[in-house]
């Protein structure tokens, strides 16, 4: 078992090294900083600037989490603290079904519902014309995708709070909402943070659904109604033709490496924050 455990940890390292080696050719020509901050993307000329893709990824993920976090938190609070058993009986399986849906279905839903809604209802209030394939569409689809995951995780976390803790608060004259806000959320803060980071990682890595609604326009998005082109979409869209141009394969592998490192950094940061919180409360 120890060997298997070590193997899974080693696997991450092997992936990192593999991606690094594959990215080496593109890194030889230009510095990492230049690649990360340049905005020009002309594979034919050998110009690879990843800034639009990085910002696209961050924008879409940020919108998704900003949408999903409050909805998921309140849903999980309702289901664990207020809902009657009969409600839970219907909602829990529904959440499982939502979590298990293939991402392409979310993508189709985004194309059929969200994109036209943004194009016809939202965008006209702010810009002259928008196709609807925007950061907002990507964010909404991603947000909806991570909601079942977040709700399931939050329910798990809230359910782990001992009943006695809630009763201690209630018996001092606190309402259920006060108990939830001041005791349950406080007690579960590390878990909430860890789950959110997991959801961020999931949103960052999501490919198909985002690819279908993000617009796939190379450029740094400046607002919710601009199109974007997140890193996973870049890799998936161009994977078929990467061998047709020199350095293209290497550039796409570097895109994967960036995604890998960004997700890793998020996880490490959350671990550090968790460690601090736990140390403070222990």
């Amino acid at each position: 078992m120890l060997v298997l455990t070590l193997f899974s940890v080693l696997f991450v390292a092997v992936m990192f090294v593999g991606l690094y080696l594959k990215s080496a050719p593109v890194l030889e020509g230009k510095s990492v900083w230049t690649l990360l901050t340049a905005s020009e993307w002309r594979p034919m000329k050998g110009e690879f600037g990843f800034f639009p893709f990085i910002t696209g990824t961050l924008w879409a993920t940020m919108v998704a989490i900003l949408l999903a976090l409050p909805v998921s938190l309140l849903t999980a609070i309702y289901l664990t603290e207020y809902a009657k058993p009969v409600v839970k009986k219907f909602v829990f399986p529904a959440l499982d079904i939502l979590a298990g849906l293939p991402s392409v279905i979310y993508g189709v839903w985004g194309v059929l519902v969200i994109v036209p809604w943004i194009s016809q209802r939202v965008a006209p209030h702010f810009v002259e014309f928008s196709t609807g394939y925007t950061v907002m569409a990507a964010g909404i689809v991603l947000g909806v995708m991570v909601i079942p995951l977040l709700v399931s995780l939050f329910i798990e976390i809230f359910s782990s709070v001992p009943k006695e803790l809630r009763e201690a608060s209630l018996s001092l004259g606190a309402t259920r909402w006060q108990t939830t806000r001041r005791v349950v959320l406080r007690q579960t803060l590390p878990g909430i943070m860890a789950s959110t980071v997991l959801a961020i990682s999931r949103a960052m890595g999501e490919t198909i659904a985002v690819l279908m609604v993000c617009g796939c326009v190379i450029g740094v998005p400046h607002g919710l109604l601009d199109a974007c082109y997140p890193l996973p979409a870049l890799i998936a869209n161009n994977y078929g033709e990467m061998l047709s141009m020199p350095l293209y394969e290497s550039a796409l592998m570097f895109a994967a490496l960036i995604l890998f490192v960004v997700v890793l950094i998020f996880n490490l940061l959350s671990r550090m924050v968790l460690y601090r919180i736990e140390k403070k409360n222990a």
Partner: protein
Amino acid sequence: MIEIQNLNVYIKDNHILKNVNVTLPEKQITCIIGPSGCGKSTLLRTLNRLIDTTEEVRLEGRIMVDGQDSLGHDAEVTELRRKIGLVSQRPCPLPMSIFDNVAYGCRINKMFKKRRELIYHVRQNLRAVGLLDEIKGRIRTPAARLSIGQQQRLCLARSLAVQPAYILADEATSALDPISAKTVEDLFVKLKEEYSIIMVTHTLRQALRIADNVVFMYLGEIIESGPAEQVFHHPQHELTQKYLAGAFS
């Protein structure tokens, strides 16, 4: 004074408390005794309506707390719970500092406008349970770092801080070491001058030591109740006699 009249409690299809009628006098220690599963804790949880958190519970009858029916539709449950403090079997400090644990109820109930008043009040209550000197300089540290005995006294201080009239104690000393248990027990004796204490206990000796009144329960019914002297030394009911003789527990 708490007067329980024709109280029946059902959880799902189980009839847990059966036609309970008893008066719990003021500023005395009333010990509820009886074998495991006889409904002692349910009765206690019904008094401050914590029983409401149990699924599929049904309550019938009246519990008159200072003349108001706490089971009535217009009963203010949060105010009732503030008025009837609870110390549970296992100490359960809230996930915050020692100070914030005691201040929690005061803040919830908006008891003080000035921070200075709150600090004074928190310190007073920590002193009342003999904890202030023990935790000198550590008042802002997490409550979870206290020993179990200290945590239980902190929970008592937290209950006292919201200025209740009654204190419910559900086997409040059973999870403690003998020295801490004695400290908490002595505290209850001291506190009865100001509060009415209703205590569920499994330890007959403890009830003998501190009870002014005793309620003996068996299978959800009150078999006998009255002054401790009478119930312990001249029990009227055969079941009470058997229980006190140790025939069952």
